[in-house]
C-alpha cells in the first residue's frame, strides 16, 4: 500500500455522528408526525438555501476528515515507512493549493511579493517587488495581469453558468417526468413558484455556488486567489481547511452536551424530589462559574497533560486532534445547563398530563414512560437547541483561540487565522486578506447555520406555529 490510513479521534466521532444522523433520517422518514415539520422546513426558501450552503461546507469537512499518511518514496516495500505528515483526501484533491507556497505575504491575485527585496535585473541588483514563484508565473509581462484575471473570471463564470443550465435542464426533465407534466408546464410552475417546494431558490443558490466554484478554480490555477500568509501558504487553502475545525467544534460539542442535558434535565423534571435538588445544585454551580474561565482552566490542564506525556502521540496531527477533542469535551461539559433547565421545566409539565398518569397507573416502568412519553415530547426542544447552538460554538472558537485556550496553534482554524493576522493591520500597506478571508468564511457558515436554525425553529416550535 502506498499509504497508511489514519483515523483520528475526531474523524471517528464525526463519521459515527454521520451514521447516527443517517439512522435518524431513516427513522424519521417512516414516521408521519416527524416528517411533517421537516416538510415545513423544506417549504421555506431561506432554510433550503441555507441548507444547500451548509451542505457544501459539510462535504468539504467530511472530505477533510479522511486522513492518511503517504509512504516515503525511498522506503523498502517489505518494511514501508510513512511520512509523519498526516494528509486528508481533501488535501489530495487540492494538491496545487497546498504545495504552491511562496516566500511570504502576497496580496490576493497578486503576481508580486508584498515586500520589496533585492533582485537581479539586467546584471544589476535593484530593490523591487520580486515576482511570485507560482502566482501569475505564466504571465510574461505585468501588463497582461489584469486582462488575464478578467479573462479567467469571465471564463469561469461562463463555465459555471453552462453547468448550471445543464443541471437545470436535467432537473426540469426529471421532475417533469416524475410529476407527469410536459417540460413547459413544469417550467411555468417553477417560474411562478407553484412547485410545492422552493424551486427558484434551489436553482438560484446552486447556480451561484457553481459559478463561484468555477471562477475560483479558474483563478486558483494561476494565482493565489486570497493571497498568501506570512510563511507563503495559500490563504484560500487555510480557510478551506479551517472548515473542518469549525464543524467539529460545532457538532461534537453538542454531541457531548446532549446526553448530559437530556439525562439530567428529564431526570430532574420527571423524578423531582432529591434527584431534582441534586441536579439543580450541580447545574447552578457549573452555571455560576464564568464559562470562559472554566474552559480556560480545563484547557490549561489538558495542555499540561499533553506536554508531559509526548510518548502517547506519534504525530503532531494526533496531538492537535486530542486537544481539539478535549476542547469539545470541555465546552460540552460547561454548556449543557441551559438545555437541561429547559428540558426539566418541560418534563415537570409533561409528567402531570393525563396520559403519563395513565401509563403510571398501568404500572409502566419509569424507563419506559420516559422513553415512550416524555422524551418524544421534548425532542423538538433538543433539535432546536442543536441547530441554535451550532453557530454560537463556531463563533466561540475564534474568541477562545484569541484568549489562548482554543485549538492547537498548529491547527488550521479561523480563530488561529484571526489571531495570527490581527497585528498585521498595523503594517503599511495593510495585510487585510487573512483577516478578511477568515471573517468571510466564518460569516458564511454562521449565517447559513443561523438561517437554517430559524427555519427549523419555526417549523418545530408549536408555540410559534400557533401565533402565525
Amino acid at each position, binding site marked *: 500500500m502506498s499509504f497508511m490510513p489514519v483515523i483520528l479521534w475526531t474523524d471517528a466521532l464525526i463519521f459515527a455522528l454521520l451514521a447516527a444522523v443517517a439512522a435518524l433520517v431513516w427513522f424519521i422518514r417512516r414516521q408521519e408526525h416527524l416528517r411533517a415539520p421537516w416538510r415545513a422546513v423544506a417549504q421555506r426558501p431561506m432554510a433550503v438555501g441555507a441548507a444547500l450552503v451548509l451542505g457544501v461546507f459539510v462535504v468539504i469537512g467530511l472530505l477533510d476528515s479522511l486522513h492518511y499518511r503517504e509512504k516515503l518514496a525511498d522506503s523498502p516495500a517489505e518494511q514501508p515507512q510513512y511520512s509523519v505528515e498526516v494528509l486528508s483526501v481533501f488535501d489530495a484533491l487540492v494538491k496545487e493549493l497546498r504545495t504552491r507556497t511562496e516566500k511570504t505575504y502576497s496580496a490576493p491575485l497578486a503576481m508580486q511579493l508584498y515586500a520589496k527585496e533585492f533582485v537581479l535585473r539586467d546584471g544589476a541588483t535593484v530593490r523591487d517587488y520580486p515576482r511570485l514563484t507560482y502566482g501569475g508565473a505564466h504571465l510574461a509581462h505585468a501588463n497582461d495581469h489584469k486582462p488575464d484575471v478578467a479573462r479567467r473570471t469571465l471564463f469561469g463564470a461562463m463555465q459555471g453558468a453552462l453547468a448550471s443550465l445543464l443541471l437545470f435542464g436535467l432537473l426540469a426533465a426529471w421532475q417533469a417526468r416524475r410529476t407527469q407534466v410536459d417540460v413547459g408546464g413544469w417550467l411555468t410552475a417553477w417560474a411562478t413558484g407553484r412547485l410545492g417546494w422552493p424551486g427558484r431558490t434551489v436553482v438560484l443558490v446552486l447556480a451561484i455556488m457553481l459559478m463561484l466554484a468555477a471562477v475560483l478554480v479558474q483563478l486558483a490555477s494561476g494565482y493565489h486567489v486570497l493571497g498568501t500568509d506570512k510563511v507563503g501558504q495559500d490563504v484560500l487553502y487555510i480557510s478551506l481547511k479551517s472548515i473542518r475545525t469549525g464543524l467539529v467544534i460545532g457538532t461534537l460539542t453538542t454531541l457531548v452536551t446532549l446526553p448530559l442535558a437530556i439525562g439530567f434535565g428529564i431526570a430532574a423534571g420527571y423524578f423531582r424530589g432529591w434527584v431534582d435538588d441534586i441536579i439543580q445544585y450541580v447545574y447552578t*454551580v457549573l452555571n*455560576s462559574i464564568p464559562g470562559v*474561565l472554566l474552559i*480556560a482552566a480545563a484547557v490549561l490542564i489538558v495542555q499540561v497533560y499533553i506536554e508531559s506525556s509526548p510518548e502517547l502521540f506519534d504525530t503532531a496531527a494526533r496531538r492537535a486532534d486530542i486537544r481539539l477533542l478535549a476542547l469539545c469535551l470541555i465546552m460540552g461539559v460547561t454548556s449543557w445547563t441551559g438545555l437541561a433547565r429547559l428540558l426539566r421545566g418541560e418534563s415537570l409539565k409533561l409528567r402531570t398530563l393525563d396520559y403519563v398518569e395513565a401509563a403510571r397507573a398501568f404500572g409502566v416502568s419509569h424507563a419506559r414512560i420516559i422513553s415512550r412519553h416524555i422524551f418524544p415530547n421534548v425532542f423538538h426542544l433538543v433539535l432546536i437547541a442543536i441547530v441554535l447552538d451550532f453557530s454560537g460554538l463556531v463563533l466561540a472558537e475564534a474568541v477562545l483561540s*484569541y484568549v489562548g485556550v482554543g485549538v492547537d496553534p498548529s491547527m488550521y482554524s479561523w480563530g488561529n487565522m484571526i489571531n495570527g493576522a*490581527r497585528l498585521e*493591520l498595523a503594517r503599511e500597506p495593510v495585510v487585510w486578506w487573512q483577516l478578511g478571508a477568515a471573517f468571510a468564511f466564518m460569516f458564511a457558515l*454562521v449565517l447559513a447555520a443561523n438561517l437554517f436554525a430559524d427555519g427549523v425553529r419555526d417549523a418545530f416550535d408549536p408555540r410559534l406555529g400557533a401565533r402565525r
Partner: protein
Amino acid sequence: MLAYILRRLLYAIPILIGVNLLTFALFFVVNTPDDMARLQLGVKHVTPEAIERWKIEHGYDKPLLLNAGAKGSAQFTDTIFFKHSAAMFAFEFGKGDDGRDIGNEIRTRMSPSLAIALPVFVIGLLVNITFALLMVFFRATYLDLWGVVLCVVLMSISGLFYIIAGQYFIAKLWNLLPISGFAGGIDGLRFILLPVLVSVVAGLGSGARWYRTIFLEEIGKDYVRTARAKGLSEIRVLFRHVLKNGMIPILTGAVVVLPLLFMGSLITESFFGIPGLGSYTIDAIQAQDFAVVRAMVFLGSFLYIVGLILTDISYSWVDPRVRLQ
C-alpha cells in the same frame, strides 16, 4: 421579604462551597502543584530542587487536605486547601505570580471595567429596545422582515470583527478616536467611546431580535386587544401597555448580569487596553497564573449568585403578581 432574602443567601453558601471545591479539584488535584511548577519553569531543564523552591515561594509546599505533621487545628489549617481555597470565602486571594496582591488588583481594576461595561449595558438596553419596538410597530411588513434579516446578519458576524473593524476604520483610518488606552476622569471619555460603540453594535443583533419576540408575545395577549378596543392609538398601546409588560422579562433578564458587569469583558478590554478585570483575567490565562484565574472564578461565581438573588427580588418588585414566601 427579609426572611426570603435571608433564605436565598443561605442557599447561596452551598453553591459557593461547590464552586470552591470544583476549582480546588481542577487546580490542585487534577493538576498538581508539581505540574504547575513545571509549566511555569519550563518543561526541560527542571530539577526537583527548583520545583521545591517554586512551591515554597508560592506557598504550595503544604499537603493538600490534611497536614499530619502539624498539631491540633493546624492539621487542617496548615494545608493548601485551607490557605488557598477556603481563604477565598474571606476574599483573601493571596498573591499572583508577579507578586502583587490579587485583592488589591481587583479593587483598583474594578472601576475601569465598570466605566466600559455600565455604559454598554445601559445604552445597549436602550438601543435594543428601541430597535425591537420599531420592528414590532412595523410588524408583518417588509420593514420588519428586513429588520429581522439585519439582526440575523449582525448576529452572524464574529465579535472580533466588530472590534478589529472598529479600531481599523474609526481609529486608524479616519483618526476619529484613539485606538486604545484609558484615562480617569472626564479626560477618559474619548477612550471609552469606541469600545462602548463597538460593544453596543456587536450586541444589537441578538438583543433586538430577542426583545422583538418578547414584545410580539405580549402583543398577542388579551389586554392589548382590550386597549385597542378602547380606541387607544397604536403608539399608546405599544408604549403604555406592551413596553411596560414586556419590560418584566427584559429587566429580570438584565438584572442577572448586573453584578457581573464588575468583571468586565475579556475581549473588549484586552483589545482596547483597558486596565480592568477583563484584561487582568486574560493576561493571567495567557501567563498561566493559576492563582489569579482561581480568584476570578470565585469572584465571578459570587457575583453571579448575587445576580440570581437580585433577579428574584426584582421579580416581586416589577410584577406584583409574584409573591415571595
